[in-house]
Each structure stands twice: as structure tokens, then as C-alpha cells.
């Protein structure tokens, strides 16, 4: 009859109630949209300190209904700058990786740094800045039966994945959580990622990240949890992403359509974020 969405926004629970009254009255439509392809540059730059190869993806926006991921741009010049050093990202000229730029050295030199992103494309330079911040070490990961399952409110058996860690002493930290099963990311799109501020978290945190249905995991599967440190702006970016996509148009959510905020200059969309990362795995 009704669905309840619980999400954490600005440290608060945001409750969205969708009654059958309204979900029953949703109709798919195709709208006539006066749009153009390739108007905007999209920059996806999430740089981690895990010592691995890092990528930045540069693409073009597409018309709304086009089923394309956006043409990758291979002829941009992409680099990061810290106070001491520049890190050039090189493009790979293969058809399926068009628009991806890679660097192997930046990841291991990120700690404590503030980095500037530069993307030069067709005479315009797009810039953004991001500061590396520490992240707590994960103590352990555990699974419990979800409260809904316990109460028999869902036909599925749900397993709730918990993460346990000692929080950082300062109160202005923001975290992003990802979940992987056997190396495949479960929180694959921005609306599925869990973000939170640590302002209202206890010193020692046990945090329920998400629920997995019985058919999503099998005995012996490796469940890996990841925490990333993010900025307040990036946290707002993910919240806006959720409201502008999954909750879009919901008469109860009350979020008017708006562009997802960005930290990139000159009218580009997307985000540049430098993160510390901490991971822990368990076997189901």
C-alpha cells in the first residue's frame, strides 16, 4: 500500500512517504524536449589515495532521451596540480575507453594535499579544487537480519550490512560508503551510494549501510565495504543526485527540478573530489 523511503540528509532522517494513492497514478510519457546534444562538458573525477591507477572521465552531455552515455572526449588536456607537483592524465585512444584519462602516480602522493583540476578543451579551461581529508579505519563489517524481515513486513529476507569504526575527532567530516560483492560494486550509481555527515555520529559508530536481499548473496561471497572522505559540497552533490533522479517529481518529496550542483567552473557538470579510502571485507 505504501512505500517509505528513509534517507539521511544533513544528518537528519528524511522521510518520504509514497502512498498507493499516488504510486498507482504514475504514467510513463515521452515529452517533447527541445534539447541539443553536446552542449555541456561532463567531468567525473573521483581521485582516491589507494595507490592504484586513477581515472578522470570527460564526456559530452546528450539529448535527454538518447540512450547514449555521452560521447567521450579524447582531445582534452587534463591534469591535476598540487603546491609541489603537476600530474598529467593521459588519454587512451581505444574506441571503448574514449574520454578516459589515466594517471598512475597521483594516488600514492595525495595525503594532506589540496589539488586543482584543469581540463582544457576547445579553448576553454575548466577548473575545480578539492582538499584531501582523512577517513576512519574500518574496525569490522557485520550482517544482521533487517528489522522489516524480523517483523515479517517484507516477503524477502533482508540482510543489513553494518560497518563499525571509531570516528574521527572533528565534527565536520563527510563520508561516502560503497559496497562490493565479489569485487562488483552494489552501490553502482550515485543514488545508491550512502553519504553522511559525522556531526551526529557517536564516537564509536555502528552504521547500517544497506540491505541485501537473500537472492543477492550466496554463502562464500566476499562482501567488501568502503568508506571515502568527501567534502560537504560532494555530500550535497549526492543528496541532490538522489532527489533529482530517484525522487524526481515525487509530490511528497517537494524538490523542484534543479541542476545538480557542481564544483567545476565555466558551466561544466559533474564533480571533482579527492578522497581518502578505507576498506574491509568479510565472507558471507
Amino acid at each position: 500500500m505504501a512505500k517509505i523511503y528513509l534517507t539521511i540528509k544533513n544528518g537528519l532522517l528524511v522521510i518520504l512517504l509514497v502512498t498507493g494513492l499516488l504510486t498507482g497514478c504514475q504514467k510513463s510519457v515521452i515529452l517533447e524536449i527541445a534539447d541539443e546534444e553536446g552542449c555541456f562538458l561532463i567531468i567525473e573525477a573521483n581521485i582516491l589515495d589507494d595507490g592504484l591507477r586513477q581515472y578522470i572521465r570527460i564526456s559530452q552531455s546528450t539529448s535527454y532521451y538518447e540512450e547514449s552515455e555521452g560521447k567521450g572526449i579524447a582531445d582534452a588536456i587534463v591534469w591535476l596540480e598540487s603546491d609541489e607537483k603537476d600530474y598529467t592524465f593521459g588519454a587512451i585512444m581505444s574506441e571503448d575507453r574514449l574520454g578516459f584519462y589515466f594517471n598512475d602516480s597521483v594516488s600514492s602522493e595525495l595525503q594532506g594535499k589540496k589539488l586543482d583540476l584543469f581540463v582544457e578543451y576547445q579553448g576553454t579551461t575548466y577548473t575545480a579544487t578539492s582538499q584531501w581529508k582523512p577517513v576512519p579505519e574500518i574496525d569490522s563489517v557485520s550482517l544482521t537480519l533487517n528489522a522489516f524481515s524480523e517483523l515479517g513486513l517484507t516477503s524477502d529476507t533482508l540482510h543489513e550490512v553494518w560497518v563499525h569504526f571509531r570516528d574521527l575527532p572533528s565534527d565536520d567530516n563527510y563520508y561516502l560508503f560503497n559496497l562490493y560483492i565479489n569485487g562488483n560494486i552494489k552501490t553502482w550509481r550515485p543514488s545508491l551510494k550512502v553519504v553522511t555527515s559525522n556531526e551526529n555520529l557517536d564516537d564509536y559508530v555502528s552504521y547500517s549501510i544497506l540491505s541485501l536481499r537473500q537472492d543477492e548473496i550466496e554463502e562464500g561471497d566476499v562482501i567488501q565495504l568502503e568508506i571515502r572522505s568527501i567534502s560537504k559540497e560532494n555530500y550535497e552533490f549526492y543528496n541532490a543526485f538522489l532527489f533529482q533522479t530517484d525522487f524526481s517529481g515525487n509530490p511528497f518529496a517537494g524538490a523542484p527540478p534543479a541542476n545538480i550542483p557542481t564544483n567545476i567552473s565555466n558551466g561544466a557538470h559533474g564533480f571533482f573530489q579527492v578522497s581518502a579510502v578505507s576498506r574491509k571485507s568479510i565472507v558471507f
Partner: protein
Amino acid sequence: MILFFFTNEATAQKNTLSGTIRDKTSGEPIPGVNILIADKQAGTVSDSLGCYSIDLTEGTYTLTFSFMGYNKEKTTIYLDGDKKLDVHLVYDGIILREVVVTEKKDNQHVNSTETNAVLLVIESMRNLPSFLGEVDLMRAMQMIPGVQSAGDGNTGFTVRGGNADQNLVLLDDAVIFNPSHLFNIFSVFNPDAIKDLKLYKGGISPSYGGRLSSVVDIKMKEGDMHNYRLTGGVGLISTRLSVEGPLQKGHSAFIISGRRTYADLFLKLSSDENNRNTKMYFYDFNVKMNYVINQNNRIHLSVYNGQDITLLTNLFGFDYGNTLGSLRWNKIISNRFFSEHTLMVSQYQFNLSGDVGQTSFLWNSLLKNINLKSDFNLKLNDKNTLTFGWQSIYHNLKPGNINANIQGIMNTNIHLTNQNGMEHGLYASNEQHFFNDQLVLNYGLRISFFQVMGPGNHYTYDKTDPMKWQVMDSIRLEKGHFYDIFSALEPRLCFRFLINENQSVKGSYNRMTQYIQQAQSTRSVAPYNVWYTASNNIPPQQSDQYSLGYFRNFFSHQIETSFELFYKDMKNISDIIDNGNLIGNEFLEGELRTGRGWAYGLEILIQKQKGNLQGFMGYTWAVARRQTHGINNDRVYYAPNDRRHDLSLSGSYTITSQWVLGLNFVYATGSAFTMPIGKMFYQSSFAPIYGDRNSSRLPHYHRMDLSLTFSPDFKDRKEKRFKSTWNFSIFNLYGRMNPISVSFAQKDGKPHTSFFYIPGPVPSVTWNFNL
């Protein structure tokens, strides 16, 4: 400070004829009765208390008292000094074959000095189609030209390009913060408890203040002073029952009305335990008592309480409601001097609670105001009537205490800062008649003040980046202390120039100031009503409105028409920044920007009030725009309720004395909304990229409703005490899908757009009775 000018003519010795006009059976005073003096081509209208007063030289006069739904009363009187003449009019049966919109009687449409005022009478709507069988004044009001409906399944409305929070909705003078039930689907007004609704969209009297766009003045029934009556109805979703009668015959009366929906009662029969533990209903009750102390003093007490209760499977609770009370004392000081003193209390509260395993939360919020006012009406001479008074309101806005607890993880207690303020108004106006009543001028001034009061917090923002204000500093406001003071002079003016008996020109100018406003996105139906006061960051809103109309009646007043032009300019009206967070946000002001809004248009009304076929057609052509620093890159954009064309047709046809056919048709240009101009692909997900705010249009809105009313007891109604009617309605006859909102999401890895809408057609049947 206020200058008045009166014409003092040297005239022959005048005598004052005055009195009160009441309903013969119930003893209720009847405002708006037309009083005509046959030999003099002169007349007057009874005021809101049913009182009238007219100055005449010595002589014999024949007076006619007439009001819609009542038999005309003719009296001849010889006047040789001041005289009192109380009149009782006889009500014309239970079903009135009248139309929805009525602006009083005969040439009242042309003659009335109230410009832009529309009266809706509940009885007249029982023959018209209704949504799920619930006769709803607020919904009918949305058909009036100049009023824009917020959409299907929504009682929200805006007037002449204003915002939804700019309407002062009053029930027996007490403010209603959220006049809706069931997530805006129904209004809080039980048709059995309500007498009428009067909407002012311009030319607003200086006795009203505090909102920019309109006043919706709803009056509850007074109760029968002589007989006991039982009225009620059974509909598809709710049942109503009202009892009224004398407490002390001829001196005091009461009316108690209740209404409750009962869909949830069937859930109890369900075999599924989750369904059994689910509740979703609303109720409301109205109580009104009035007591005649003596000929010159009368007291009225009105109480309303309504609640919406939603409880999903014992886990998630959501309830909200209004509680109002008003106590009014009418005193006739002399045959020329009337007064009214009123104390009003309004409260709106909502609670949101949940308890799901380890997670629980509770959010309480409250809006309260205490309002005291006095109004005086002094008939200076037969050319001048002076109205004056004062009003003081204490506002107490508590956006909430929020407790969120996840066992062992977090326990957050958030206390959002309360906002308090005192609002005062002082006003005077004079209605002056010139050239043998050919020209009537009503001019006045309201002076309003607002004081921000502690306790609370005062924030200072760094506003360098208009898109993102940052909190710089905060000051604690002490309890009982006053801080920012705002004030405004609000001149009001309206005139009526009678060209002849069938034609007139009316115009008005009014300035309005609004000190408290609501933070809500226009299309949200969630009852999180967060209001906030004017402050150092949000200055009070102000509007200047001009209107000019030509009124003409045809065929001995059978057909009434009007053509009105308006222009409204609004200062400091607020809008929400992109991705603004209004829920549980202590720094709410940082999410709002104020700017300019303006609207203009033409409104045409044609109505027929007599005969078997009755009805009206309203058409509006209008534009509503906004410009706000920090929104839409500072460019001009359309208000969401901007509708170029808006057409309403409503009518009833009496087939036989037992059968009446009713029809509504509505057409409006789709409302303005923001549409994507492309999309981005980021972390394996699509997200829309939007262009200018509100630069696209939803599909056109149109809908037809049909109803058939059957009155089995109509033929012998004189003999029978028990009377009943059946109303069969079909809402949205041809099942038009009118979107409430649009979703731009992703489905199966593809961009996906969909409309939220209320499906149709919606049939209903309601049985009403009267005993």
C-alpha cells in the same frame, strides 16, 4: 495622522431608520440584504451583522428587503423620527436552484461597491458535481476567474499570480494555516457546517491585512434559534452529521457538525495484519453557539477541530490538523454605531513519527496565533459611513523538535529555532456617496507593524555568492524582548460609478503587506507547513494592485457580465534556491531569496442566475512573472502558476422539480515547469540537465464533471419534515490525465519520464438528508 474629508451638506431634518435583518426560522442575521426604497430610487445593504441604517426625511416609504434564497419582504412605514425596524425573511426551501457563483441580487452585481468580491453559498453547490461526493467550497472557488488551482487532487490555490501562502483563509475570523485534509485532496470545510465563503481578490478592505493576494472569509452556520434540526449525509468516503437548535428559544442556539472518513474501518476486516494495523482517516467537527443578550448585544462562539491521522502498519505515523476558536461580541452602540470585538486562537500542528526496528524518529511542529481585534461601523450621515478598528496578533511559529535515534549509532535531538512576532494593524476607511449615489468612493488606510520577538536566533549570512549564503554569525534573541521592527502604510481605495441601472465601472487600488510566510515548494502536497517571520534576512512582502472593471447586466438583470483588468506588483516575494533544503533546516533563510513578482490579466465573467438553466462562465487571460537575485541566473522567469488561458464553465439545469443536472468544465494552459535540456552520464547513472526555471509547460489542463441530483421529497416538501436528496457525480468524465508533477528518473538503465496524476473518471454517490 489620518485625514478624513466628509461632505457636510445642509439638508432637511433627517430621521434614521435602522434595524437588523434575520432569518425567520433560525434567527441568524443575514448580511448583504438589499434594501430598496421604492419611491426614492435609493437603498442600502445590510452589513456583516445583518444591520442596516438609512437616513430619510419625514414621510411614508415602501421598503423592499430581498436576498438570494429568501422570499422578498415588503413593508410600508411612516417615518417621523428615528425608528427601528427589524425584519425577518423567510427561507425559500432546502434546495436552492442557484448557481455556484453569485454576487448578491438583481442589480447588486452592478451596484455593489465591493469590487473583486465573490460570494459562494454552500447550498447552491449541492446540485453540482463534486470530487468523491464531497461538496467543497475551496474547490468551487478555484473556478472563479483570477483563482488558479494547484491541480488535481489539490485544494491549494493562488490568486492573480501570487503565491499559495498569500491567501488569508479565515473561518469565523480565525486563521487557518492548512485548509486541507488527506494531503490536500479535500478542504477542511464540512459543507453542513459552513454558511458561505467570500473571496476578495482585490479591492480588499483595510480591515483585513497580513496577506498579499486574497482574503477568503468563511462563515459557519449560526444554528436555528427556534427549531431542532438534524442534517447529514452519507458519501463514498465520509459521513456527516449536524445537530442544531435553540438552547433557550429565541435567545440562544447551537450547531454541532461532525464528519469522518471511514475507508480505514474496512481495513480492520482485512486478513492481513499489516492492513489491520494501518490507519488513514480524517475527521473534523465544528461547534457554533450564539447568544442574544439583549437587542443590542450578541455573542458568538465558534470552535473547529480537525485531524488527519495516518498510521502505516504501526510503524510510521503522520498526523496533522487545525484547532481554531473565536469569540465575538457584537454590540449595537446606537442606531448609527455598531461594533464587533473578536478574540481568535488558531493552531496547526503536525507530528511525524516512526519506529522501525533500531531506527526511530519523532518530529513535532506547531504554528500558533492569538488574535484580538475590534471593528467599528459608524454611519456619519446618509453619504458617509466610517469603518475603523485595530488588530493585534501574536505569532508563535515552532518549526519543530526532531529526534532521530538509530539504536547505538546516533541519537540526534534537533531543536529548530522558534520564531515569534507581534503584528499590529490600525485602520480607518470611509464609504462616501456622491451624485445621488451614482458614485461611491471607499477610501482608507491601514497602518501595520511587525515586531520580531524573542526567544529565537538571529543569523547573519555572508551573501557574497548569491547562490550560496554562508552563516557568519548568530545572536540569541531573549525571551520577551523585541528586535527588528517593520512597518507599512497600506492605502486602499475603491470606487463604483453607476452609468445607469444596468451598467457600472468599478476600480480599486490596494497595498498589502505580509509579515509571515511559508517555505514550501509550490507542487509539494506534503503538509510540512514551515512558516517563518520577516527578519533581517527576509524583508516583509508588499504588493500594489490596481484593477478596473466594467459591469453590465442584460435582460432585467437575468444575465450578469463583468470585464476586469488587473495589475499586481509584488516586492520581496520569496522563492527557493536550486536544491534548497526546507525540511528540518535551522538555516532556512539561507535557502530562500526574495525578489520581484508581477502579474496582470483580464477576467471575464458571464452568469445567469434565474430560470431552469443557470450557470456561469469565467475566463482569465493572465501573465505571472518573477525575478529573483540568486535564482535562474537573475533572469526573469514565469511563476509556476502562470496560466495564459483559464476557462471555467459551471451550470445546472432543472429537468423536473425532482431532477437537476449539473456540469462543470475547466480548461487551463498547462502550468509552467522546468524541463531538462539534456542529460549527463555520471558514475553509470543518468541525471537531467535543466535549462531556465519554469520555461516549459505541462500539457493543457481540461476536465469535465457531471452530476445528477434527485430530490424524491421535493414535490411535497411543504408537508414532510424529512427531506433527502441523492447526488450522483462523475468527476473527470472522459478520464483526462492531467499531470500533477513530472518525474525525470532512470528505469532499467534508461532515462525515464512519467507523470503523477489522479486517474479518472471518479464516480460517486452521496445521500443528504435534513430532518
